[in-house]
């Protein structure tokens, strides 16, 4: 190789190395921060992650083994005795060698014995691991009922007596009983870092449990195709330290806040005219409105708007209320005809519902 050629080769190698390290750091960063199933924060997700990693490394090892065997098969020098294949398949040869075809022993060993020896213990391991987390370690003290609607989540705390939507709060490190239902079609409740997917089937109440071992906000989503906006049917699971959870639950039990701000009060009137046909509010000990869409009693203190898809900031709320079909076309909330002042008033009112 010429000097110029060697320099070119060195440059090419450095470039390749740079690209690989960029890719590697991107992947590492993605693994570290994304709501990934291999980044578990609760016992159920941890079991799934363990099973996954074992299967991954086992599969990787078998893959390398198979590739090595393939390489050997491709590049070995062919023995002399192979040059008469017709003779090798003759009845006389079969009688003499005791096998149907050359290499039969290898095929039986590698194709039947090895898989059985690998897969049977692996299956037992999987089953045992999943059984271990099928029931909570201690009886849960908290029950949450989540009902899947197209395309949002109705959340009820039956023992505390309040409802919310698109946001589930749990105390850190404690098992919580989940009752999963569906209003219309099959949905699936999934919080990748905390638990596996659980179908929600209309007409059934499916009992399961969840536990988050680290405080934080975890992304959740619908994991069973349920219609045109399945992809934007998300929620958050918030794990709070026990005192914070108790404070949150106490606030949720309060009725809708009444604001002194005149714009918010005007917004309340707009809400009573235009929004109550599909949404509910807890006012003075009773529920006002129709539960076609989410309860909005404490909308102002939620983290997201539109069912987990946008942070709950004023711009996003105005955009959602102004034209929900532009953000999530085909979802159940129609464009509500509001003049601009009414739109801003109702946005201010929603912000005040802490």
């Amino acid at each position, binding site marked *: 190789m010429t000097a110029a050629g060697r320099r070119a080769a060195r440059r090419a190698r450095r470039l390749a190395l740079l690209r690989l390290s960029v890719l590697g750091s991107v992947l590492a960063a993605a693994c570290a921060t994304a709501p990934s199933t291999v980044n578990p924060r609760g016992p159920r997700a941890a079991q799934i992650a363990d099973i996954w990693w074992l299967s991954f490394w086992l599969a990787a090892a078998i893959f390398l083994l198979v590739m090595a065997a393939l390489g050997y098969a491709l590049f070995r020098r062919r023995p002399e005795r192979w040059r008469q294949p017709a003779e090798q398949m003759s009845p006389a040869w079969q009688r003499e060698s005791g096998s149907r075809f050359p290499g039969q022993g290898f095929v039986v060993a590698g194709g039947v014995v090895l898989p059985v020896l690998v897969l049977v213990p692996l299956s037992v391991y999987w089953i045992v691991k999943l059984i271990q987390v099928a029931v909570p370690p201690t009886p849960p003290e908290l029950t949450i009922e989540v009902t899947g609607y197209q395309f949002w989540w109705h959340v009820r705390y039956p023992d505390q007596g309040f409802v919310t939507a698109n946001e589930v709060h749990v105390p850190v490190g404690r098992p919580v009983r989940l009752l999963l239902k569906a209003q219309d079609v099959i949905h699936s409740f999934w919080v990748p870092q905390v638990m596996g997917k659980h179908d929600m089937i209309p007409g059934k109440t499916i009992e399961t449990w969840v536990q988050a071992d680290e405080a934080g906000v975890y992304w959740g989503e619908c994991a069973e195709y349920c219609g045109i906006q399945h992809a934007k049917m998300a929620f958050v699971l918030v794990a709070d330290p026990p005192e914070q959870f108790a404070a949150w639950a106490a606030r949720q039990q309060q009725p809708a806040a009444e604001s002194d701000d005149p714009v918010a009060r005007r917004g309340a009137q707009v809400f009573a005219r235009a929004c109550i046909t599909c949404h509910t509010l807890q006012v003075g000990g009773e529920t006002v409105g129709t539960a076609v869409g989410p309860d909005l009693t404490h909308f102002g203190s939620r983290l997201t708007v539109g069912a987990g898809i946008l942070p709950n*900031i*004023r711009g996003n709320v105005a*955009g959602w209320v102004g034209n929900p079909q*532009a953000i999530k076309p085909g979802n159940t909330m129609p464009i509500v005809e509001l003049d601009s002042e009414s739109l801003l008033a109702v946005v201010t009112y929603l912000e005040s519902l802490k």
Partner: protein
Amino acid sequence: MACPGGRGLALATTLLVLAATTGCGLLGDLAPAPASDARYQPARFQPSDLPGAQPDRGARVMRHAYGCGACHVIPGVTGATGMVGPPLNGWSRRAYIAGNVANTPDNLVRWLQHPQAIEPGTAMPDLGVSEADARDMAAYLFSLR
């Protein structure tokens, strides 16, 4: 004719040449004008008219801090598909902001911070935009040719 492909090929070639020349004529309005023509000024301002502003930061802040995309279509801002306010494509070529004041960098910075003061009752709320964020966002908008 003595050409391979016969009449069909000749006809196709003629049509193609005609289309190309005619097309060039029709599309001439959208083609870049010669740089020497000083009358060509579809975009009066650019990001550099806001010294120190960072357009890339403006795009990020639009998405993460203020939710602009929930109401507006904004090219280059992920998820900006809202249809409550007008789409902001080609912002630098606009003559007016909200059909109200002239589209200049200073007016845009004022508008982003206090739309209700410039056009009371408009659908765009006051979002508590800081001066620095408004300058960065305005710089980004003026980069949309």
